[in-house]
């Protein structure tokens, strides 16, 4: 097993896009961890460091300067927002992917292992959830729960587990007939034991790849909800929200179409690179693991 992993790691590091993704990810992790040092919150802001400090009362965006290296948008310091927004992005990605993957794993494995009517019921419930387009479902649920990042995350979790459930169910159904599972059953290993110790480890890899790809897209969905006025509260360090501030300014001023470029470029770049990082890693892992996998 060890050897296998080593071989895969080697393959991974031979793949330039994979390495590039990993470097990006490490960079974002560092920014997220050291956010309080890179962009220290003002004393009055200590108790809610995720709120971007207000630096002016004028609604006009202000170009990058010494005090505000990324400029000012919607009266707030973009640099601060981009740095702390890294934490927000990780939080959205990790929590939503983590929880919805766990739910998916749970439902998928139960469904596949037991089969019969349990499978039937669980899969019909999955069908119902799958029958509402994800974005629309997220919009409806977020509106009903009220605005706020936590609400956005709940909505994305509630409507985000079905893919994993189906994937894991299919994989387990295949693996169930394999010799080692039958053998484990024969020597009397308990059901949860079989699922956790034998079935999951052999089917989890595709799930993880799928999860890594979703990490990025969730940040985008959150940004879209921001656009509809359903995302993070105003002033919260969130890339989507900062991008949303720019929507009214991006056509520029008269005669200067690109006058307010910084309102888009900095948060936009952060977002693109973040999504890119996860995708490149996911892509590369998939290529290594099994190039035929279509996720």
């Amino acid at each position, binding site marked *: 097993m060890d050897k296998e992993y080593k071989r895969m790691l080697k393959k991974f590091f031979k793949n330039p896009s994979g390495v590039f993704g990993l470097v990006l990810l490490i960079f974002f992790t560092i920014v997220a961890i050291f956010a309080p040092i890179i962009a220290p919150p003002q004393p009055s802001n200590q108790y809610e460091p995720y709120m971007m400090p207000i630096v002016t009362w004028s609604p006009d965006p202000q170009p990058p300067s010494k005090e505000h290296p990324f400029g000012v948008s919607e009266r707030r310091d973009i640099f601060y927002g981009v740095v702390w927004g890294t934490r927000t992005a990780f939080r959205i990605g990790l929590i939503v992917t983590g929880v919805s993957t766990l739910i998916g794993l749970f439902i998928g494995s139960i469904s596949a292992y037991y089969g019969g009517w349990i499978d039937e019921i669980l899969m019909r419930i999955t069908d119902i959830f799958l029958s509402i387009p994800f974005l629309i479902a997220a919009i409806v649920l977020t509106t009903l729960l009220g605005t706020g990042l936590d609400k956005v995350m709940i909505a994305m979790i509630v409507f985000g587990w079905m893919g994993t459930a189906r994937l894991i169910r299919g994989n387990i159904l295949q693996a169930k007939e394999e010799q080692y599972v039958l053998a484990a059953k024969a020597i009397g290993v308990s059901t949860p034991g079989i699922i956790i110790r034998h079935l999951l480890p052999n089917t989890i890899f595709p799930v993880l790849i799928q999860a890594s790809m979703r990490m990025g897209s969730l940040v985008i969905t959150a940004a879209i909800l921001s656009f509809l006025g359903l995302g993070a509260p*105003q002033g919260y360090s969130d890339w989507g929200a900062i991008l949303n501030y720019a929507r*009214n*300014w991006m056509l520029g001023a008269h005669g200067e179409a690109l006058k307010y470029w910084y309102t888009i470029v900095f948060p936009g770049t952060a977002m693109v690179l973040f999504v890119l990082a996860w995708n490149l890693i996911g892509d590369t892992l998939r290529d290594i693991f099994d190039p035929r996998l279509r996720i």
Partner: protein
Amino acid sequence: MRKFWVILALMAFAVFGFAVKGDPTTLVDLTISEPDTMDPHYAYDTASGEVIYNVYENLIAYKGESVTEFVPRLATKWEILDGGKTYKFYIRKGVKFHLGGDLTPEDVEYSFERGLIFDPAGGPMWMLWEALFGIDSLEGFVEETFGVPYSDMIDENGEAKPEYRDKLISVYTDYIDPAIEVEGDAVVFHLVRPFAPFMSILAQGSSWSAILDKEWAIEVGCWDGKADTWWKYHDIQKEESPLYAVANGTGPYKLVEWDRTQQKVTLEANENYWREPAKIKKVVIWGVDEWATRRALFEKGDGDICYVPAQFLSQIEGKEGIEIIKGLPTISVTALHFNWSVKPDSKYIGSGKLDGEGIPPDFFSDEHVRKAFSYAFNYDAMILQVLRGLGKRVPYALPEGLIGYNPDLPMYEFNLLKAREEFKKAFNGQLWEKGFKMTLLYNTGNSARQTAAEMLKFYIEQLNPKFKIEVRGVQWPTYLDTYRKGYLPAFIIGWLADYPDPHNFIFTYYHSNGVYGHSQGENYEKFVTTPLEELGGKTLNQVIEEAVAETDPAKRQEMYESVGRVVYNHALGMALYQPLGLRVHRSWLKGWYHNPMRPGDDYYAYSIEF
């Protein structure tokens, strides 16, 4: 493959080859909101009002830019008799409705009676009820007259219960019908008491006083004019009104289409208009919600008029071919008011105690707290920077231009030292020691309100690190719901005049039965019903009630000023600003003029000259 490229080239040519230019007889008005209804007796918003203004006509109209002088419209002249209790309007002859009907005095009588009977909840008809009968709704009037709630007189099917049938019939025969009568060529209104703003309530722009064609209205299914059926036509749902999506007025424009899918209203000039037909033959009022999109359309010349939010003004300033008019007077104010008795289970007051983790429910009952808040707001920055100068300070919630306004009344200035002093005095110094935590809400999308809340937070948190104010945006339904129910410790809210009279503002904000006064808690009600020395032993409520019945403008002025002084002395609320209007259109549009009481545009006055 080559075929593909040929087709592609052909397509590209086709796409770029055709472009059609606009013409000087068509006008496109790019705006944001969409009408609510075309029924004049239900419409209460400016978007609906704008269409009704151009399609229907009233008896009288404001003279040009004035809000106090009137000119004849469907009435040729009028007389005010009985010391202001009787109004007589002589009806113009030879006027035709769009669908061909002739205007008669009976049409006028019917129009007002239909409105009074309809009186939809949340609609504008309360104004005519208040003016004619002194009570602001039909149902209130019925209950007051017979002592039985209206809802008890009607069964589930909307039919009058037999025992009350005669009484309900008499509501029409004995009260509504005699109040508005036809006398030869004239229509006479009988008011129960003199009511100063009556003319304003009738003037063009007040859609609730628009004149319908009686025969047509009955034909399409409005009230049939009979005394024993009216309750079936009372308070019907908006979409059930036969006039919901159709219009037949005497105005310079005909309603061609209300395309609710595209938020577009199309008007066409009425060639049989009793004055000269309009110069602009076709008007399209188009709701484009996204600012960037609206702006792009306007800059390309695909729109002649454009709604521009003040904060984006800098984006289009300097572009040639665009006319920008700034600082137009409006009759409205925006103010922050305190809730003196917050509901104890509110989630916006933290712990609900004076322990640094919340505020007690009666936080704002302490005068020092209110004063401290009043001192901690940067009024100038708000007006100059946030509103880009499109605002004006007012001493209390009464806009300039109305009786009672006096720029010399005392005002709170932005002074953090004084704010600190007041905070130190509050709750016997305990507040300063322990600190507090509370939440201010604003409705998302309203950036002026948001900034105002953030500004208070910004300055108050600077005073003492133990002071914490959380500013949060919510959807407007939530905003309305929470402040109405008394969960919000303080709320920022604006008021746009229904008619240009101080009563419309003072009552709303400061009387404990006013829409906003009501939401300021029991302690506030106690305060305004307690006699005050400064008012000569009268209560604030009393003075407000007496002021509207007073006919002498000088005395009214004095009475409202005394209200203003009480507002200052006890810091009853923070009048943040009176917004000033902004108008942006292409410079080829000629003939525009401003009237603050007019909903939207008067297309009849315009022409396009390239």
